[in-house]
């Protein structure tokens, strides 16, 4: 993984000093609450419903075991002994005292970490494929470009006060596991007719109140131009993006107001002036950063050991786990292991300090001391020899980290919701709990198979409900928590937005109604169809009829939801 040199370390150290000074000025009263707000937000520090929340950046989701240990230490020392992994591959602390934030940053800086631009109207953490570097369907590892973009975007002097937040994602694989098309800028590494690899550039995707799937504005961009092209897009956005209304300030609104043709023309015009400036990347620099992501020293004989197959045959629990929680690896004899943070009795995406320490130790022992945070709020050990899988599974089981539910109904994406978030209209975590209680039969879950439930506690859509196979949106209906369901969304290569099922439903009915939807699926599915496939084949009507048996109510009555 990328290692800081003196320059990188100096920047995070100086950032700690700067933020300490800002916080001291705030506490001393020379900075008002209003003046301090954008400064703390630029550093991921929110004031939430009950306490501050600090979001720490995990660039493209990649952690060393040393870093994960520090994250555990921070949760113990400054918080309540747990933390929450987010859909953007970051980690959030829910209970730190504001006064301690500079000390937390200093601890983070000691392991090459920071909270720079994890909030605020600037360029956020560039996210990527959780299987980057090891996936069989990968054209090229996207992480070197994520790192190059991280450096370019860090304290960018022109783009630190954008109209709104700005998110970039990159995938280098055939199958999109990074939700690329629902980002402000989405980049796919692609090959052109003459075998060169470059970027297909998508713009204007995003969820929130007005969801859009991104549009390609340049099917092939040479790698050396990636920063100049990003700068051109950002400059057009910074100049012309709306600033009069926070809900219309994302680039997707500008893009759709101008239309693809006009928007692209403006970007290309801007780019024509800067494409050969200092922004143009040297191949030498690309190669240098790539060097940090070189393959580890794999065991050439890893495939020879057959104990994995034997264990699968003899141990049913291990076999179930292996079926759901392993992912193919490009190197024979290796697997990627998904550590489920979706145990039935835990808040989705949460990990305790003890679990984090445990995982760090397992990474040291089994996976070259690296851990990846996934977009669906789990953790991955990317490089595990198949001969180690059984003992790894046993050790994960000890700390409630081996729930065999990856990709299943209970592997939900879930925002913090009303339990923590000041913006939330309704709870998310209690719904996750309700679903876990209702669907506690593992055989049933395995029979239902791949399905993605994504849940947000408000229209801001941090839980990506628009792109869930089943999306759940919390709404406040006259002071009561209600939930709006959508069906058929996807954030992957076939990205699309879900369709609204009908009027919102009361809190206590959510799991029951999901059960009805699953019954429809089980009845109508053909062969190997997933829930999503069946839905797209048969349409919304049978699902709607199972949930709302009476005459359909006019949609607009519920538009205020």
């Amino acid at each position, binding site marked *: 993984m990328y290692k800081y040199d003196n320059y990188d370390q100096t920047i995070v150290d100086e950032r700690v000093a700067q933020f300490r000074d800002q916080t001291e000025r705030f506490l001393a009263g020379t900075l008002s609450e209003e*003046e301090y707000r954008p400064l703390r937000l630029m550093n991921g520090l929110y004031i939430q419903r009950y306490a501050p929340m600090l979001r720490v950046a995990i660039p493209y989701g990649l952690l060393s075991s040393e870093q994960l240990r520090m994250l555990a230490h921070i949760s113990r020392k400054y918080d309540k002994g747990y933390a929450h992994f987010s859909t953007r591959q970051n980690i959030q602390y829910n209970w730190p005292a504001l006064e301690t934030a500079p000390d937390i940053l200093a601890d983070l800086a000691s392991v090459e970490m920071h909270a720079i631009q994890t909030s605020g109207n600037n360029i956020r953490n560039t996210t990527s494929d959780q299987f980057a570097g090891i996936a069989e369907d990968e054209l090229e590892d996207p992480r070197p470009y994520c790192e190059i973009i991280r450096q*370019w975007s860090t304290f960018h*002097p022109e*783009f630190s*006060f954008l109209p709104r937040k700005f998110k970039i994602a990159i995938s280098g694989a055939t199958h999109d596991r990074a939700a690329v098309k629902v980002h402000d800028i989405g980049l796919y590494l692609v090959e052109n007719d003459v075998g060169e690899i470059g970027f297909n550039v998508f713009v204007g995707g995003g969820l929130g109140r007005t969801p859009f799937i991104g549009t390609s504005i340049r099917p092939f961009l040479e790698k050396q131009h990636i920063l100049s092209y990003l700068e051109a897009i950002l400059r057009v956005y*910074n100049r012309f993006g709306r600033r009069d209304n926070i809900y219309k300030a994302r680039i997707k609104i500008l893009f759709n107001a101008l239309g693809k043709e006009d928007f692209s023309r403006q970007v290309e015009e801007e780019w024509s002036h800067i494409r050969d*400036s*200092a922004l143009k990347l040297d191949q030498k620099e690309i190669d240098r950063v790539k060097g940090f992501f070189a393959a580890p020293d794999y065991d050439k004989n890893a495939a020879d050991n057959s104990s994995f197959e034997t264990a699968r045959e003899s141990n049913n629990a291990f076999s179930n786990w292996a079926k759901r929680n392993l992912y193919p690896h490009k190197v024979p004899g290796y697997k990627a292991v998904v550590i489920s943070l979706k145990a039935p009795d835990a808040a989705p995406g949460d990990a305790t300090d003890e679990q984090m320490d445990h995982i760090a130790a397992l990474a040291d022992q089994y996976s070259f001391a690296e851990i990846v945070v996934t977009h669906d709020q789990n953790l991955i050990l990317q490089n595990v020899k198949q001969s180690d899988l059984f003992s790894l599974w046993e050790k994960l089981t000890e700390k409630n980290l081996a729930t065999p539910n990856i990709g299943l109904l209970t592997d939900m994406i879930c925002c913090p919701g009303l339990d923590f978030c000041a913006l939330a209209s309704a709870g998310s975590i209690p719904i996750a709990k309700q679903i876990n209680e209702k669907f506690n039969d593992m055989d049933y879950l395995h029979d239902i198979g791949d399905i993605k439930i994504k849940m947000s506690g408000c229209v801001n859509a941090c839980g990506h409900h628009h792109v869930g196979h089943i999306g759940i949106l919390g709404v406040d209906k006259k002071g009561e928590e209600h939930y709006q369901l959508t069906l058929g969304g996807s954030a992957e290569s076939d990205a699309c937005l879900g369709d609204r099922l009908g009027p919102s439903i009361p809190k206590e009915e959510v799991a029951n109604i999901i059960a009805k939807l699953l019954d429809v699926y089980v009845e109508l599915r053909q062969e190997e169809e997933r829930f999503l496939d069946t839905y797209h084949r048969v349409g919304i009507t049978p699902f709607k009829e199972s949930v709302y048996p009476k005459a359909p109510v006019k949609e607009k009555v519920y538009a205020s939801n």
Partner: protein
Amino acid sequence: MRVIKDKAVVNDDWCLLRELDNDASIPEGNVILPFAYWQANRDELLKGDTKHAVWIDGAIETEALLDDLEHFSMIALDFPAVKDGRSYSHARLLRDRYGYEGELRAIGDVLHDQLFFLKRCGIDSYELRADKDPEDALRAFDDFTVRYQAAADGAVPIYKLR
């Protein structure tokens, strides 16, 4: 007017005219004119051989100034609120693309913690908001000794130094 220039607080006699009717006469002394006033009175103003100062905000396109850059000794860039970052792009374009070499002054909601960014975009004088202590803000220029990316301050991308 107390402004920050070359990492020091100095007094200068520029007077910012936030508003001036297009048919009004210009007050005595060094004044920073609204750009709309400049446009309305351009022919008249060009008769003298002195240079002028104007102020613009993010609602004006940088390109609207291009024919006149040689007549300006100062362009003041307005930040109506901290979060309104449009004038950073004005500064980059005026410096990097359109070759403007006169003074660029940040005015409006200009506070301590923007100075580092403003300087990097090519702005070289700063009128801090009146209720703030400009002396205390001077250390903001030294917040960071390392800059990752090229900008209008002559920095090269950090990787070229590695």
